[in-house]
């Protein structure tokens, strides 16, 4: 097997590095100091300052190389401080000193290289300033690498070379990311803060820069948010059997590659620049498709710009069985244009399609539309009808809750089936994760006060794949922390994406329960908060900020006669297999569950009997995790906040207590 490790000797010390490691990194790993000016740990090395020069020997040949951009591919011997190298660095230092005699980093460098005579190589133009630009080019590279712009560049030749913006004017494309100032070694670029009077702008900048650096260096190997945005999740979800397909019956499909991020990237995405949805953000996760020619609707034949598609839109389409990328983009465009949420539309149509295929509704109910899974044109027809307030689209536009209630009254023989497959809770359609194999995700979705929207439901990998929250208490703890953390973003008006769509390189040093939180990134958010307000945060203070709002939402819901215990119970499709074909598609998993977790030999049972046993077990498990989550939140067995909890949070106002006690009394009578 080919090894990735290369042996080498540096100053007589034997070591090994991963193939492709730069020589400078190998040297630094041994804590050997060599001078650099143009190098910055977060930037691509370019070797322009020449100070990191070392002498290497390979196959009897010696040569000087710039260590910062020399990738180690073969075993070599390295000398970092021999006479030839030292003389080279000294001459360079003298030239730098001759031009920038008062810049501290140059003076330090000269001292380090024993270069003392500033007049020996004196430049025709001497920069007397202590924070003169030394033309190291870090800022130019930072602008391009961190933010994918070219706001800064060099102009002029020889001693007239200087740093500038296009036409010597402030470029409107500058998003104010401050990367240039962050990497400047002399202070030649300084930031003037004029916005919102933050308490500590430097604190915000310094932590924002950490994000910028991670985006430049880690994102290409992690989630590729800059390249494809959240569309990267399409293939991940499919691979892990979590992509909703055919109204959440299944978790993957053979046609997923037709709508995944590779297709979007290769043939559709034309825009990927920072759109300033968060000022200065370098992630640039928003993507757009230019010049897309519409095939239907009021803008048929027009070439338009489409904002997206993101993961949830593609997931909504897989849920409808529509694996046609042109459809995905057109569906995306018209949902945006009509002001319709792609998730709710996708989930509602998936429900309609299953009802149609099961014979619950027919073309008589749909005004002639044959709404089988994969009926792309018919979905678009429904969408246009919805926008016009006509035809079957009018009913679709009222969502799953409305449809299942209406059809259950018209066709009571299908009521149980419709309530099993109607993927909504609290009136909101489920977002696009197939959650039936993850108990924690089921609770994350269904216990969210606003309904099963994905921003509070975060546990599917932790629970189903990692098995890192096995007990009910573990799940309850996760169901406490993550939804409140996500709520906190919303309260502050901060974007979630830079929390966990890029991860620090050393996040692996944390044990899994901590690693899942990404502690360094949580700290970034606390520093953003502190930088704006001057108030220091910790985990308890942050969670309590959210918990106050969370409990107030609950109180308001109860006051309006909503958010009752029944509203925290998911449709069974979210929990387990409703139909035989679902059971059959995962029969090995379910038979194993019967045998190992429930203690029943599945062999003599019919599929119907096995499904019933699984259902009883899973719903029992759901109720247990729901109660554990209630307890962790400081709520009673009916999911109503206890008065002690309101006191802890400082929101125990008499009118709130009155609402809660009334709701508690009603719950006791009803349950």
């Amino acid at each position, binding site marked *: 097997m080919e090894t990735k490790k290369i042996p080498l000797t540096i100053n007589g010390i034997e070591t090994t590095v991963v193939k492709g490691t730069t020589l400078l990194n190998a040297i630094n790993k041994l804590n050997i100091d060599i001078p650099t000016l143009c190098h910055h740990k977060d930037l691509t090395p370019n070797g322009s300052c020449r100070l990191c020069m070392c002498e290497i020997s390979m196959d009897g040949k010696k040569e000087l190389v710039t260590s910062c951009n020399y990738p180690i591919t073969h075993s070599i011997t390295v000398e970092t401080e021999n006479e030839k190298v030292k003389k080279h660095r000294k001459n360079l230092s003298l030239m730098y000193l001759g031009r920038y005699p008062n810049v501290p980093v140059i003076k330090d460098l000269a001292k380090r290289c024993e270069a003392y005579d500033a007049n020996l190589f004196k430049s025709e133009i001497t920069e007397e300033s202590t924070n003169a630009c030394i033309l190291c080019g870090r800022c130019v590279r930072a602008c391009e690498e961190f933010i994918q712009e070219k706001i800064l560049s060099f102009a002029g030749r020889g001693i007239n070379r200087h740093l500038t913006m296009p036409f010597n004017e402030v470029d409107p494309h500058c998003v104010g990311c401050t990367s240039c100032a962050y990497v400047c070694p002399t202070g030649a670029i300084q930031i003037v803060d004029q916005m919102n009077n933050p308490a500590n702008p430097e604190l915000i900048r310094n932590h924002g820069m950490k994000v910028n650096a991670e985006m430049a260096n880690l994102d290409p190997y992690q989630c590729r948010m800059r390249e494809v945005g959240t569309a990267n999740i399409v293939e991940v979800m499919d691979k892990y059997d979590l992509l909703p397909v055919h109204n959440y019956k299944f978790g993957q499909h053979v046609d997923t590659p037709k709508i995944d991020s590779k297709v979007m990237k290769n043939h559709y995405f034309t825009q990927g620049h920072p759109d300033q949805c968060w000022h200065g953000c370098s992630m640039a996760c928003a993507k757009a498709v230019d010049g897309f020619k519409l095939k239907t609707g009021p803008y048929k034949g027009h070439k338009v710009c489409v904002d997206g598609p993101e993961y949830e839109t593609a997931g909504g389409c897989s849920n409808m069985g529509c694996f046609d990328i042109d459809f995905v983009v057109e569906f995306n465009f018209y949902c945006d244009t009509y002001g319709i949420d792609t998730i709710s539309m996708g989930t509602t149509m998936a429900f309609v399609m299953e009802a149609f295929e099961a014979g619950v509704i027919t073309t008589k109910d749909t005004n002639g539309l044959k709404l089988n899974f994969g009926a792309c044109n018919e979905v678009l027809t429904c969408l246009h009808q919805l926008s016009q307030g006509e035809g079957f689209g009018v009913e679709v536009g009222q969502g799953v809750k409305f449809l299942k209630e209406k059809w259950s009254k018209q066709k009571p023989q299908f009521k149980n089936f419709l309530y099993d497959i109607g993927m909504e809770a609290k009136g909101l359609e489920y977002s696009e994760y197939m959650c039936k194999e993850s108990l924690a995700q089921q609770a994350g979705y269904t216990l969210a006060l606003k309904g099963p929207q994905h921003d509070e439901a975060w546990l599917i990998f932790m629970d189903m794949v990692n098995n890192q929250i096995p007990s009910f208490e573990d799940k309850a703890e996760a169901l406490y922390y993550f939804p409140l953390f996500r709520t906190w973003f919303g309260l502050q008006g901060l974007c979630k994406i830079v929390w966990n769509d890029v991860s620090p390189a050393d996040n692996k040093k944390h044990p*899994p329960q901590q690693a899942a939180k990404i502690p360094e990134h949580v700290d970034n958010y606390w520093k953003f908060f502190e930088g704006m307000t001057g108030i220091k945060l910790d985990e308890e203070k942050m969670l309590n900020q959210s918990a106050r709002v969370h409990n107030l939402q609950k109180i308001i819901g109860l006051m309006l006669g909503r958010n009752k215990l029944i509203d925290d119970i998911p449709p069974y499709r979210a929990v387990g297999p409703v139909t035989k074909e679902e059971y059959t598609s995962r029969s090995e998993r379910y038979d194993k569950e019967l045998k190992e977790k429930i203690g029943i030999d599945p062999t003599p049972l019919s599929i119907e009997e096995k499904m019933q046993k699984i259902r009883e077990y899973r719903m029992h498990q759901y109720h247990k995790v729901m109660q554990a989550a209630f307890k962790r939140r400081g709520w009673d067995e009916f999911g109503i906040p206890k008065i002690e909890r309101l006191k802890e949070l400082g929101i125990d106002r008499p009118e709130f207590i009155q609402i809660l006690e009334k709701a508690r009394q009603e719950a006791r009578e009803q349950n």
Partner: protein
Amino acid sequence: MITVNNRDQLEWSPNMTVQDVLNHMGHTYSLITVTVNDKLVEDEDYDSFVVPDHAFVSVFHLAHGG
């Protein structure tokens, strides 16, 4: 036999590497942390780190997205 994520059993074979385990489990995710008997395995060692028989392998997927 080795145990993955304290749940899944996988037949062990001589010279089985971490990468073999990931391939077998279908774990292609980009944000993965692997430990073998509680020892962290670096990414660059996945194809050379040999997993011993009866090992407990943890494949931790860091959530992202949405």
